[in-house]
């Protein structure tokens, strides 16, 4: 019979193989982007329809999510860079309460629109299964790419996709 340590090592190896294949990676997606209307921090409503004809990236984030905070400044830079070419970034915040969001954005402001989704309706509609998630939508309102999670370097990925869609 196997020694206990061999058995454990084999189980551990099986674990790595199986579990790494079960991870949902970022990738191409399709289908129309669900419409939504949410309010911003000032209470004014806004939604996807306000940006018809533009390439839109909807970024789902939260104040309690570390990687979300990490990518915010990079998203801001990207927004400023590509806005003149017909690109918009909408930050959809999923926090249950607004005060924390207001406090964070006062300390670390961003120039792209931030809308609040405390009831998580939009997150559900977009099947958000990872935090943060970025959904890139083309000029015709079709979802083209979903990026799950954030690791430094991912912003290059975003920029490639955005440039591609701007050119269409």
């Amino acid at each position, binding site marked *: 019979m196997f020694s206990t340590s061999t*058995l454990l090592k084999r189980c551990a190896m099986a674990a790595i193989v199986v*579990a790494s294949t079960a991870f949902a990676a970022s990738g191409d997606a399709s289908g129309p982007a669900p419409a939504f209307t949410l309010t911003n921090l000032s209470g004014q409503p806004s939604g996807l329809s306000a940006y018809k004809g533009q390439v839109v990236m909807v970024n789902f984030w939260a104040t309690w999510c570390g*990687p979300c905070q990490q990518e915010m400044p990079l998203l801001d830079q990207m927004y400023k860079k590509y806005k003149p070419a017909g690109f918009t970034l909408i930050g959809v915040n999923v926090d249950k309460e607004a005060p924390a969001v207001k406090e964070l954005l006062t300390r670390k402001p961003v120039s792209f629109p931030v809308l609040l989704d405390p009831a*998580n309706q939009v997150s559900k509609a977009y099947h*958000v299964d990872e*935090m943060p998630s970025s959904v890139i939508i083309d000029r015709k309102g079709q979802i083209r790419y979903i990026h799950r999670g954030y*690791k430094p370097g991912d912003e290059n990925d975003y920029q490639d996709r955005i440039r591609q869609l701007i050119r269409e």
Partner: protein
Amino acid sequence: MRRRPILLIATLSGALLLCSACSIQPWVKPYERDRLADPIMAWDRDAISNAYMDHIRESREGSRGATGGAGGGCGCN
């Protein structure tokens, strides 16, 4: 007596890990993890202090092992 618990850990982990390939939809969505991401919900908010208390206890008690915790948090990646 020694083999049984080890085989139990191995089998249980093996079963769980194989099952991860099955698509079980998470019932707590990533955007619902605000409370779990709160530092007060961490198993080891101060790991050094917890390790030190375990050290104190194990130097005075006959028990050892199985302390600590993993997982939880924001589930971000």
